[in-house]
């Protein structure tokens, strides 16, 4: 595939930085992290989480209450932010509800509802009658909810490839529009904190006891977070600002939870995205790193970036603001890239004080003004699943 000719016509996010794009850019510009200390359930250790506040009070519309769970509540709040629903309504008038698809990423969907149901089983192992697995915990619940909520009748499905889930939704949107199966696609994803993810990463000894500081010599692990984000992709027109220029997907073929030691999968994803975009490596103006704070993973990403893009291109991890939002990381990192393009800003690497001396790439410590034409973002997930996206200013 070449010349994607696809544009992002609107986007929105809700994460630990607040609701909507304005909250996000303000927090980014003022170096305000969304990470807060929390005791890990079942023990006395502390970690830092990027939590979204107020979800307990969110109301799901009456006709869709079967979908009520923390993850779909976050989807609901995100749909309301920045009038994303209004933008989709406009697209509906233009294309028709059956011509708009929904492809969203999540890693755990409404798992916290299943966890609660397990805790509430009676002596006969019966769940409370209100528990509705398919509409809450099942991964497809997210895309079904958003399709119903937006009144769309096109194709809808969930991609779940761990931390590259929502990143890959952009690739599927490109397939859907290029084949003519859809005129517009709602992409992005929603992932909310649950016992499984917190205790799972804790069990792998990956959770940092301090706010994460990716690429720092003192980095002690990751801080996880929750987030929702949506973007509407359609064919480019004269009013569009941001384009999807390329995507690259690959697998590591190495290990379920450790990256390939030479970063081979990451390298393939980046090279494929570059090839599709038609750009030379020196034409990338900024890279938003996967940069979770896991020292081993960050070092491999640094190695791959340096190998392909050299040591000059400014790069940073923004996980110090949002935490690693897992299945939503792709849409959150993409939204940060969109804001970078819109505001001509290269964001710093929050919480970085001393760069790991083994790292060669040009890791930006503090945010600065700089006009940008093209940006790249990487996400690498468990199961060795990788996806790279390249966005650019519409020319």
């Amino acid at each position, binding site marked *: 595939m070449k010349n994607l000719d696809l544009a992002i016509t609107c986007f929105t996010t809700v994460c630990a930085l607040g609701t909507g794009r304005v909250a996000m850019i303000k927090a980014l510009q003022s170096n305000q992290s969304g990470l807060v200390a929390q005791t890990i359930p079942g023990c006395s250790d502390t970690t830092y989480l990027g939590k979204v506040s107020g979800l307990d009070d969110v109301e799901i519309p009456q006709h869709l209450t079967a979908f009520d769970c923390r993850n779909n509540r976050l989807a609901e709040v995100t749909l309301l932010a920045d009038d994303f629903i209004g933008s989709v309504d406009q697209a509906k008038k233009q294309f028709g509800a059956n011509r708009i698809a929904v492809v969203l990423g999540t890693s755990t969907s409404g798992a916290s509802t299943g966890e609660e149901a397990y805790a509430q089983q009676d002596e006969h192992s019966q769940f409370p009658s209100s528990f509705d697995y398919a509409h809450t915990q099942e991964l497809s619940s997210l895309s079904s909810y958003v399709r119903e909520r937006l009144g769309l009748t096109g194709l809808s499905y969930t991609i779940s490839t761990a931390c590259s889930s929502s990143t890959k939704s952009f690739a599927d949107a490109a397939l859907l529009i290029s084949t003519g199966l859809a005129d517009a696609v709602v992409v992005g994803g929603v992932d909310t904190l649950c016992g499984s993810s917190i205790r799972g990463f804790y069990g792998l000894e990956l959770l940092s006891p301090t706010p994460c500081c990716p690429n720092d010599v003192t980095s002690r692990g990751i801080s996880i977070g929750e987030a929702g984000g949506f973007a509407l992709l359609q064919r480019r027109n004269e009013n569009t600002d941001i384009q999807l220029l390329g995507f690259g997907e690959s697998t590591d073929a190495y290990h379920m939870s450790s990256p390939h030691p030479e970063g081979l999968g990451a390298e393939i994803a980046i090279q494929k995205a570059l090839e599709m975009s038609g750009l030379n490596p020196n034409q990338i103006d900024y890279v938003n790193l996967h940069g979770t704070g896991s020292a081993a993973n960050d070092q491999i990403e640094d190695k791959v970036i340096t190998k392909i893009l050299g040591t000059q291109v400014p790069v940073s991890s923004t996980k110090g603001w949002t935490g690693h939002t897992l299945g939503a990381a792709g849409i959150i990192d993409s939204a940060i890239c969109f804001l970078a393009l819109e505001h001509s800003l290269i964001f710093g690497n929050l919480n970085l004080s001393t760069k790991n001396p083994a790292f060669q790439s040009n890791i930006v410590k503090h945010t600065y003004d700089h006009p940008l034409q093209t940006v790249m973002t990487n996400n690498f997930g*468990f199961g060795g699943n990788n996806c790279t996206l390249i966005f650019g200013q519409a020319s």
Partner: protein
Amino acid sequence: MTKLHAHIKGISIIGPGLNDWSETQRIFSGQETWQGAPTIIAPPEIVSPRERRRTSPAMRLALNTALAACEHANADPKNTVSVFSSAIGSGSVTERIFTALDTDLKQVSPTDFHNSVHNAAAGYWSIGTQSHTASTSISAGDFGFGVGLIHALMQVALQKHDVLLVCFEHPFSGPLHAARPLGDAMGIGLVLSTSGLGPHITASFDQGDQQLTRPNHLELADKCELNPPARSLALLEHLALKKTGTVYIPHSFDRMLKVEVMP
């Protein structure tokens, strides 16, 4: 209206009383009587013994289905893009994690945690085959076969790769089984290609109000009704009997994919 095309290079099936594609062909053609015995899932040869021990029954089902489809197609997994479609992924892993979280210490096993990702089967497939090609894992509830087929056909049309589609479902065995019944375990594999001598399919969105096409083997259809991959059975019956025809497969609760089959 968009029509997507592909040749079917390889087919595999593992299900209740269905141990492989050649046996299934004989059952569809009436040469053999279908017994409906519980699904047999062998240890997956494609991964090393160390990794084999870590795989869940759902992953084993997916891996065996994937390998059998590639072998039938004589396709090299290293040059084959993959899509794995399943509603629940590994139910046994989910139930073990939830059970652990329901204790005071809430200790989640690291292996269970990395196996809990929906793309775990795809990850083991990539490791076992040493393939670095793109791989997507989809959840589309009961519509996993229709949606997976669309995704695979888009990849064939645009990326010009051979594409392996694996649609699999292994039911829960613990208390979640009652909350999400899925029938007998079943896996369906197809290798799709832009070219080849195999049967040809053309797929498009249906504008009418068709229903899911059921196979003529109604006993089998009834037994597998709850299992999402079983929505491929009418298509597979056409392929087994080398029959020209049209089958309808839902891709959502209110929309159908129309698939025209040319043997």
